[in-house]
């Protein structure tokens, strides 16, 4: 079991509050699952209490990627699918920052699918929250990479024919060192998953099923108790989170599957490994300053 925790920056003073973290009023449709994810993020940040100026909230393109406008922290709204490498650039070049990335299923699994795999395998220290609604909402109902077969969209009026991505299998297989799954109707569970992901040293990803009330209503009813479904969490005493095969087995369970932490291991982050390489290279070069280093390079070219 993992024992190390991420080195937390010094706590904020005064304590971070929801009021301080609130920015523009969300532009999502009334009833959208993303409101609850936002509320959970505020609560997680209040409890994590990082210095306000050291929190970065990033996103790509999509309904859920409007997220940074609604959070009063440093942040950015980058291009479709590429907020993960952008955020990896922040993480690698600024160890003092806590980096959170938000996006949807199109951003993460379709246009950004390759970036996700590579930043995950490099285990770059950041927290990535994927709000999966199984449909392209911002562009008004096209088939998404997670839309189930038979889903009727504007690009598949007869029902989707392509096999969808299994997000948890993709994520477990990607090399991410923390992989969890949650549901936008379960605020307490979301807060816990986001907090654990934030405290995990390395690439941590939480997939949250977040219903699109407009274009795919009822998509996640089978895991909502008040709608007759069942919210089944992972029994953490019974499931070995460091066992890749066990995680893949869990990820292969039939829909709607289970919620909680599928996979969690400690593996050196790229941040730490680059830092070690730098220390060695600097020592080998006599820990010289920049000007001395460049002068030495020039001397070799004489």
């Amino acid at each position, binding site marked *: 079991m993992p024992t190390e925790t991420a080195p937390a920056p010094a706590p904020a003073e005064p304590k971070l509050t929801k009021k301080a973290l609130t*920015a*523009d009023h969300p532009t999502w449709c009334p009833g959208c699952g993303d409101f609850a994810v936002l509320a959970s993020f505020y609560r997680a940040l209040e409890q994590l209490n990082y210095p*306000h*100026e*050291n929190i*970065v909230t990033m996103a790509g393109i999509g309904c859920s990627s409007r997220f*940074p*406008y609604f959070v*009063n*922290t*440093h*942040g*950015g*709204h*980058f*291009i479709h699918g*590429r*907020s993960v*490498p*952008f*955020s*990896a*650039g*922040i993480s*690698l*070049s*600024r160890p*003092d*920052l806590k980096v959170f990335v938000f996006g949807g299923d199109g951003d993460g699994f379709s246009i950004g699918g*390759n*970036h996700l*795999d*590579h*930043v995950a395998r490099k285990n770059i220290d950041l927290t990535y929250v994927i709000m999966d609604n199984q449909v392209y909402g911002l562009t008004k109902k096209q088939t998404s990479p997670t839309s189930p077969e038979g889903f009727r969209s504007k690009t598949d009026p007869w029902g989707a024919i392509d096999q969808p991505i299994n997000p948890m299998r993709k994520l477990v297989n990607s090399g991410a060192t923390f992989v969890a799954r949650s549901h936008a109707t379960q605020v307490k569970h979301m807060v816990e998953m986001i907090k654990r992901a934030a405290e995990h040293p390395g690439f941590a990803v939480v997939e949250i099923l977040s219903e699109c009330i407009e274009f795919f209503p009822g998509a996640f009813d089978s895991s909502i108790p008040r709608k007759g479904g069942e919210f089944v969490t992972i029994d953490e005493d019974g499931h070995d989170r460091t066992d890749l095969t066990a995680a893949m087995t869990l990820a292969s369970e039939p829909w709607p599957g289970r919620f909680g932490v599928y996979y969690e291991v400690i593996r050196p982050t790229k941040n730490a490994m*680059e830092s070690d*390489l*730098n220390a*060695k*290279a*600097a020592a*080998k*070069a006599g820990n*010289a300053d*920049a*000007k001395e*280093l*460049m*002068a030495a*390079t*020039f001397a*070799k*070219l*004489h």
Partner: protein
Amino acid sequence: MVSPQSPDSSADSSSASPEARSLKDVVIRLAGNSQDGIQTIGAFLARLAGRSAQDVMTYMTIPSTISGGPSIFQVRMGTGDILSSGDEADFLVAFYEHSFENHIGSLRKGGVLIYDSDHVSPDTTDIDCLAVGVPMTSGTIEAVGGSAKEKGKNIFVLGLLCRLFDLEVAKMTKLIKEKFGKFGDDVIRNTMLAFDAGYAWPADNIREVYFKLQPSDTESGHPQITTDGNTAMTLGLITAGVRYGSGYPITPWSTIMETLRTELQKYGGVFVQAEDELGAISYAIGMAYSGHLAVTGSSGPGISLKMEALGWATMAEIPLIVINVQRGGPSTGLPTNVEQSDLMQAIYGSHGDSPRIVLAPQDVEDCYYVALEAGRLAREYSTPVIILTDQALATRIEAFNEPNLDELMVDPAPNLSAKGENFKPYPIDEITRHAAPGTKIEGAPYPTVTGLEHDEFGHPSGNPALHMKMTAKRRNKLCKLAKALPRPEIHGDMDGDVLLIGWGSTYGPIREAVLRGRETGRRIGHVHLRHLNPLPPELERIFSRFRQIFVVEMNDRGLYGYGQLATLLRARYANPAIRSITKTDGLAFKVTEILKGVEELSAVRSVNLSEYPET
């Protein structure tokens, strides 16, 4: 540039004692296969020239095959300004039959052919040259020992050339020891055995004479650096304060990323090899957003992939250096050849109205300084800056004065000083100054940096009036830069018949063409543009002093008869005197090609604009 004296034009070669023939400069072409280490010979000669305060310029071709294939390395060294690597060779060293057949045409009349008599039996009956056969292969094997095979024959040839040009053996030996020292004493011993064998080879018909390069009359005592354009660019980036960046391998950009990957570690930075070009620029923009001066780069096809993100950097007003080491295109094109066909892409690529700064270095030394300028401008104007270098500059070696680091070294620490309630990331009337994450914002909201059109605070807005204002803001900062740019220098005649305009690596051949053109009585001037977007001031006035303006560039003349820069200048200045000298053979301009273009265009004072150009 004065061409070298013919070996026959000096003293009587039948004289018994060796006779020195003084040369102002010399062009040596080494032709072999890519695995023969001919680049090593060339690089040693170039380094020695740099250490001897000689001017030097090299030129190489490498096959785009994975291993093997014909390859050449040409070195021109001597006194005075060496402006090009030379149209014709004074000496040709041919390792194989194909080397002889393919390159004998590049040897000037009366030049010296040195061939490996173990591999080549040249028929030189109709060729005006001094042909000298040397058993380079067997000579090397004999010197080093049977197990050495052919390895080391390049060093044998280096020894031969050192003797032939009476180069400083002590300095060369030191260079060899520096280069091979890390491989151990055995390697140095074998290398020196091969070198000494070449140096002592009794090639009598050339031993009767040796060639002495004139001592440099411009020796300043200032230490010289001898390196290639990609290395100079990389060192310029680091001097400019670049500590972070990301890229993806593509020829001929890769050596910049390889060097940054290892060098930046010493400086406490990180260069990331990304999963693809899209990821590479995204990492780099993330690093730039974090308050660093960051770099990404590629060659044409990779730059195409970066264009979407570059649009974001323009909209979000992020400082970023993007390097394009141009090669022959489109598509995979000629990956190991040179072309200047990405100018329009650099200025107008991406989508929407996305103005950005575009710079081009003119020679290897300038690769260093253009990187410094790019860093300064990216920060000052909070914008992406594209550097358009090319394959010829990337690989060729030149010697130049060591830069003064006391004046040039930039401290790269991000500015995280707190911002107050008046903080606006996108003020309409001022240039954007971002607050990088980690900056305390007191009394104002934290900024969201965005690709959506936005108001002064960074809030998304689709307001038509605001989009007009913000589009103007992004444009006006470059107009401001245009006014601050230095007036371009004119070389040669200040007014007259013909003005040659160039950009990038064509600098040397154009200058040499101007020198030669003026020797024949033509009134000819040259302006070389380093700032391509925005263009510098006062070009119109310079243009008005010449009857004809010919733009020399390595790209296609296009559907309407004009190369890419010529098209832009015609659109900008609406001056019908602007015409084009272009070519697309994937090789650097020869001086004679430029002079021929000048002759041809000068003979026809107007073109029929109603017709497409003849093919």
